[in-house]
Structure formats: structure tokens, C-alpha cells
């Protein structure tokens, strides 16, 4: 039964069996030391010789040394240091004429670095943001030594709270400083002009006026300033500027810039905004229940991965189509496009080391990898059209090639009842004894009922008696009048003659504190000594647990139980709370002492 069910789950197309797999293992290097994300991977024919290279904006181990790496086949071809951590990498054609080598764009900080033929070609910087005139005025005054650092600080703080234009980085840094450091900072920076700049968070390409493979593309940038910029591919001027209510982190676009395009931006506030040509503001908004971790467009469906381990499909108007639950956290997502068969699917790298491939709701394939995959890229690499490049969390590089004969078919595996239905219920068996007992019950039912009822009356009587007795001697640890239970544990710390005894007192009323109670221990003085057998309890605040501890010293090594009483102040000796507990017999410690 078990064997049959396991082979059942393995059948269909989801198996990663070597012989039946759709993928050829071209390369696996666990020591490749590539730490990056899907956004920083790009495949491009950088030299125009038909041999596609892999461009990696590498963060470096621990995000310390950002580098631009270009891989040819399994080996690194070139490696250049980058000035700041890369945010995204893209390859695009800048102009129609000339040789058809694409330019490489790497977004990092407030700049986009353009490389042509792997040489630095152009640096585009984001335009400066408008400054607060008051702030500018203040720094001008500082330049002329008209105000001292302390007044500057006060006035800047005033601006920060009131003005709608935020302060520049320089002012914010100044506000952080200690008094002693201010003077030096002001002297050092007063001559510089203050500037406010933003940072690029995401970048994609958008075809300008042709949908062809080798058409000129515009760069689309998402900035920390909640804006989306579309750049001209040749002149690097800003063609369009759109604003969003939140910071975009994933962008996806379809169409052409000059004709009509739809831009989807997944933002940090957990919403996806959809913009169209000529709309400065979002046209539609999709509200997700959690943060997006990836955004991929498949034909006309926007697929979003959320932090709740699920993929959602939306139309371009923001209507939800489907949801698929993943078995683990989604780390990265990308598009798989097999042009020869016209297939577009979504790949999702999961934290359990799987890469799942979905076409709409249908699972097409699962790739199991030795480490969790953090970035995915599918396309033409080297000379092979259908290559999947993956990098793992540990910095490894995995390259797989899709077989020429492989066809993705939706798995028809999950037909029939779920496997849980096949498990047997554990219904206990009945023996001869049970049958005999039922026979007896059938014959002498009346007598059994009567005697049981009599016993029940007796039981109730005895229980009520014992309860009244306990109430009279106040043995129960719960008290209804003062509303405070007394919990007592003997914390047997130390085996020797001395024990530490802790009483836990708690006031269970909602608002009424209990005023000064007294605690009195009653015990056999022949056997134990207590330093304080009688003390005051502090005011009991409702809800808190008060541990009150005393030291009990045993005089004999015979085990004898002791009763400890808690008495309510000014209420006489009625002892509303009381518990009894048993001391441990003392070991040889007493004899030795």
C-alpha cells in the first residue's frame, strides 16, 4: 500500500528522476561565489558573435564588494568593481543602425552605468530633487557665519517637523551628530551646496516602437522617490515621468512606448499599481494581503508571489484569477519562455531547494537543487536556446539545459481520492469480554441503574461534606472573598538541610488591588526552623505574580509535611487562603553538619 502510494506521487511529470528529467545538468559549481538576485541577472550577446554571455551584478559575499561579473560558459570572463551595490541589470539595444551589440545597463545607487562592449560608455544620474528653500537659506547663512550650529540645529528640526519637502542628506546627517561633533561638521560642509538625490530601486526595459527581438528599448526606472522614469535609449533624456503612491520594487511592462504600454509596479506598501501610456497616476490598483516578492507577466496575466507563500494571478485590470499555494517560502521568481514551443511559464525558487514551474495554475515541473535558489534566469546562454541559470543562497552556480525533446505537459497526477482517504481508521476491536458484558447489561439493567444511582447520591454527599470541611479549615488555594488564589511550590533548591521555599501570590481581580495581607507559616517547630514565620505581603497589584521566598531549615531527616497559612490582614484568624504542601525529607546533610 505504502509503495503504491509513493510511486503514485512520483508519477506524472513532477519527478526529478535522472533518466526522465527534462533537464540536462550542464554545470554545477557550489564554489562560484555569486551572490545576487534575479533582477541583477541578464543574458546578452555582448560581443555580437552569437555567443550569449551572462551578466551578473554581484553583491559580493556579505554584500561588501559589489562587482560586475560577466560569465562565458561556466567561467568568469571579466570582473569589474562597482561603486555601489547593484539594484538591477538589463541588456538593451540603444540604436537601430550600427552593429547589433546590445548595451548593458546596470543600476546602482542614483546612477545607471551603461557599458558597451564591456567598456564603460555612459553614466546617467537621476535628476536632483527640489530643495526646501528655508533649508537652503539656513545653510547660506551658515556659510556667511551668521548663525551658530546650535541655532541651525533648532531651526532644521523645526523644518523637519513642519515642511512637506524633506530635508537633504547633509542636514539629516547634521541632526544626528553630538554637540561636540557639530562644529567640525559645519566647518567642513558649509561651503558645499546641499543637494537631494534619490536612489534607483528597480529597472526594466521597454521596447520603443517595435515589438521585435532586436528593436530599440527604453529603460524604465523605479526610484525611491515613488516615481517611475522612462529614459530615451540614445540621448538618456527623460521621456516620461509617472508618480506612484509608494516605492516601486518590482516592475513589469508590456507593449511599446510609442504606441501603448501597460506598466505594473509592485510597491513596498503591498499594492500593485497599473499604469498606461499618458497616465501620470496609476489607473488600477491591486491590493495584496501581504508584501510582493516577485512580479512576472505571462501573456496577459500578472503573476505575483507573496510573502504568504502563494502565487496569485491577476488580469491587467486588477481582477484576481487564481491563487496557488506553495509548500515553502518563495525566494525568487522569473519568466520561462520557450520560444520554439510558444510556452510562457513562471518559475519560482523556493526556500526548500525546489524550483517550481507553473503555467497558470498548473504545475509543469519541479527541479530539485542542493541549495535554495535565490536567482533564476532562463534564455539563450552560450549557443543553447533553452538554458536555465540559477544561483544558490550559498553562492553556487547551477546551469541546466532543457532537452530538445522535452515537452511540458500539465501533470494529471492528482486524480482520484486524496491519499489521506486510504489510511485506515484505528477503531478498537471488541472482544468476547465486551459481548458478555453487554449481555449482562441487557439482563440486569434495572438493578444496575438503581445501584448506580444510590452510589451517585452517596458520592455527592461525600463530596459536599469534604468541600464544606475544606472551606471551614480554609484548605483550598482559591478564595472567593479576597479574590486571590495562592499558589505554592516548594522550590527544592538544595538537597541539604536548607530549602528555599517560594510562594507565588497573584491578585486575580481586574482592577482592585489588595491591601496589606499578612503571611504566617504554621509548622512543627521541632522539625523545622524558619527565619521569618510571619511577614507582611506587599500591596498586590492585579495581574502580577509575586514570588515570596523563605528559607526552611530542617532539623531532622524525617519527612514530615508542613502546613503554611496565609492570613488576611485585620480579618482575624479565619485564614481565607491556605495551602498545604509536603516537604522533602532531608538527606545526610544534617548528620554531616
Amino acid at each position: 500500500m505504502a509503495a503504491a502510494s509513493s510511486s503514485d506521487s512520483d508519477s506524472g511529470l513532477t519527478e526529478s528522476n535522472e533518466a526522465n528529467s527534462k533537464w540536462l545538468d550542464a554545470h554545477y559549481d557550489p564554489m562560484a561565489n555569486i551572490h545576487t538576485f534575479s533582477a541583477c541577472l541578464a543574458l546578452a550577446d555582448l560581443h555580437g558573435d552569437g555567443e550569449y554571455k551572462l551578466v551578473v551584478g554581484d553583491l559580493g559575499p556579505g554584500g561588501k564588494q559589489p562587482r560586475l561579473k560577466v560569465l562565458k560558459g561556466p567561467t568568469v570572463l571579466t570582473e569589474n568593481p562597482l561603486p555601489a551595490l547593484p539594484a538591477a541589470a538589463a541588456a538593451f539595444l540603444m540604436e537601430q543602425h550600427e552593429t547589433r551589440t546590445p548595451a548593458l545597463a546596470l543600476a546602482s545607487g542614483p546612477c545607471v552605468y551603461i557599458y558597451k562592449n564591456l567598456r564603460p560608455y555612459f553614466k546617467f544620474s537621476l535628476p536632483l530633487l527640489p530643495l526646501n528653500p528655508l533649508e537652503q537659506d539656513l545653510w547660506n547663512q551658515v556659510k556667511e557665519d551668521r548663525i551658530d550650529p546650535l541655532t541651525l540645529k533648532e531651526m532644521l528640526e523645526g523644518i523637519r517637523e513642519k515642511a512637506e519637502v524633506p530635508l537633504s542628506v547633509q542636514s539629516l546627517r547634521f541632526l544626528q551628530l553630538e554637540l561636540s561633533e557639530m562644529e567640525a561638521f559645519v566647518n567642513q560642509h558649509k561651503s558645499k551646496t546641499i543637494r537631494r538625490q534619490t536612489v534607483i530601486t528597480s529597472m526594466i526595459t521597454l521596447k520603443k516602437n517595435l515589438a521585435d527581438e532586436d528593436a530599440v528599448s527604453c529603460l524604465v526606472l523605479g526610484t525611491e522617490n515613488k516615481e517611475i522614469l522612462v529614459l530615451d535609449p540614445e540621448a538618456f533624456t527623460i521621456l516620461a515621468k509617472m508618480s506612484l503612491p509608494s516605492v516601486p520594487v518590482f516592475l513589469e511592462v508590456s507593449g511599446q512606448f510609442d504606441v501603448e504600454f501597460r506598466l505594473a509596479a509592485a510597491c513596498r506598501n503591498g499594492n500593485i499599481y497599473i499604469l498606461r501610456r499618458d497616465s501620470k497616476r496609476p489607473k488600477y490598483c491591486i491590493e495584496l494581503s501581504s508584501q510582493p516578492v516577485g512580479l512576472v507577466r505571462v501573456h496577459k496575466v500578472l503573476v505575483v508571489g507573496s510573502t504568504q507563500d502563494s502565487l496569485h494571478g491577476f488580469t491587467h485590470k486588477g481582477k484576481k484569477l487564481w491563487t496557488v499555494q506553495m509548500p515553502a517560502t518563495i525566494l525568487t521568481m522569473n519568466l520561462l519562455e520557450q520560444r520554439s514551443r510558444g510556452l510562457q511559464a513562471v518559475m519560482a525558487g523556493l526556500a526548500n531547494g525546489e524550483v517550481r514551474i507553473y503555467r497558470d495554475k498548473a504545475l509543469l515541473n519541479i527541479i530539485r537543487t542542493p541549495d535554495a535558489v535565490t536567482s533564476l534566469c532562463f534564455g539563450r546562454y552560450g549557443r543553447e536556446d533553452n538554458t536555465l541559470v540559477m544561483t544558490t543562497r550559498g553562492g553556487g552556480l547551477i546551469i541546466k539545459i532543457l532537452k530538445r525533446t522535452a515537452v511540458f505537459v500539465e501533470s494529471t497526477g492528482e486524480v482520484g481520492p486524496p491519499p489521506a482517504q486510504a489510511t485506515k481508521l484505528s477503531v478498537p476491536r471488541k472482544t468476547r469480554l465486551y459481548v458478555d458484558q453487554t449481555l449482562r447489561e441487557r439482563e440486569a439493567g434495572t438493578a444496575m441503574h438503581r445501584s448506580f444511582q444510590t452510589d451517585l447520591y452517596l458520592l455527592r454527599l461525600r463530596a459536599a461534606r469534604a468541600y464544606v470541611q475544606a472551606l471551614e479549615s480554609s484548605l483550598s488555594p482559591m478564595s472567593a472573598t479576597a479574590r486571590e488564589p495562592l499558589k505554592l511550590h516548594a522550590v527544592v533548591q538544595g538537597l541539604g538541610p536548607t530549602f528555599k521555599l517560594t510562594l507565588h501570590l497573584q491578585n486575580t481581580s481586574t482592577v482592585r488591588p489588595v491591601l496589606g495581607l499578612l503571611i504566617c507559616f504554621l509548622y512543627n517547630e521541632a522539625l523545622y526552623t524558619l527565619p521569618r514565620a510571619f511577614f507582611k505581603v506587599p500591596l498586590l497589584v492585579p495581574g502580577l505574580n509575586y514570588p515570596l521566598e523563605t528559607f526552611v531549615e530542617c532539623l531532622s531527616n524525617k519527612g514530615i509535611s508542613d502546613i503554611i497559612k496565609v492570613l488576611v490582614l485585620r480579618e482575624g484568624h479565619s485564614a481565607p487562603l491556605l495551602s498545604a504542601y509536603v516537604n522533602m525529607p532531608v538527606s545526610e546533610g544534617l548528620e554531616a553538619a
Partner: protein
Amino acid sequence: MGLLDRLSGLLGLKKKEVHVLCLGLDNSGKTTIINKLKPSNAQSQDIVPTIGFNIEKFKSSSLSFTVFDMSGQGRYRNLWEHYYKEGQAIIFVIDSSDRLRMVVAKEELHTLLNHPDIKHRRIPILFFANKMDLRDAVTSVKVSQLLCLENIKDKPWHICASDAIKGEGLQEGVDWLQEKTVQSDPVCEDMKR
């Protein structure tokens, strides 16, 4: 012409015709190898990626080869099997400097060997570990290891390191192919009947 042909055939001047399939991935150097085997006055100067396939002829000392120079591009690879029946020998070319696609070459070789038209015929296979002049090329021993050539038990095979631009290693391969074809030829003829 017909008379002349027959006459030369009778005299034993006419060489025996052998059909050879030249297979391998795109950019491995199939057309360049075939071109280099032709007499120097018939060689073409520039080689462009083959579309579909070309039929070329060249002669060795005792045989006349007719080569089906197939395109190795992914979309044309399904044409290969249409010519398997005619093939009396196979030349399989591998780009030794392309480590990444060695698995693809292995996969294509595997499907080739398991094809019903090839599987039960004892036809000789000549491998060229081509592009030996490149810096990141692997040796022919390593290539045969990567392609698991030792698993081919029922067919005579041979691997040569070659540099198709200079023509190094090609003659050795053709000599071997000629020897094996002559040996296996009667077998081939028997199977055809």
C-alpha cells in the same frame, strides 16, 4: 558518360561509394571539416551556418564518400533521423572548447544510438574532438569520458583530436573510417537485403 562510368567500373578504377552522415551540434565545425577534406581546388573560402543540410563529396585513397552535412541547430536536429537509413558511417563532431554543451552533445549522441535505424546496425562512428587549437579546449580523452563513449559496445568507434582550420587530425580519422567501412561493408550490404 554512362559508358565511361561503366568502363571505369569494370576496370576497377571507379571507387566504391559510401554514404556518411556528418552530425554534431551547431558551431562544432562539421562543414569546416568536410570542406577541408575536399581537394584544395574545390574548397570554399567562407563557411556559413548550414541551413537544413548539404550534400558534399570527397575521396579517400580507396573510397568515395558522399557526406550529408547536416545542420546542428536545435530546430534542424529533428531532420537528422530522416537520413539515418542511408548512412553507412557516421562522423560526429564535438566542439571541445564548449564544456557547457557537452551534455547536449551527449544527449544527442544517446538519442542517435538508440534510434531504431541505428541501434542494430554495426556502423562505424568517427568522433572528431574539434577545435583543439583553442585555449580552453579539453583533450580527446576527456571528451570521450564526458560523452561516455566507453558505453558504446556494439559499434566500432574512434575519436580523433582535430583542428579543422589547419586540417590537423582529419586524415587520421578518415583513414580509420575507410578501413572500418571496407571491413563492415559486406555486412552492411547483407543487412540492406
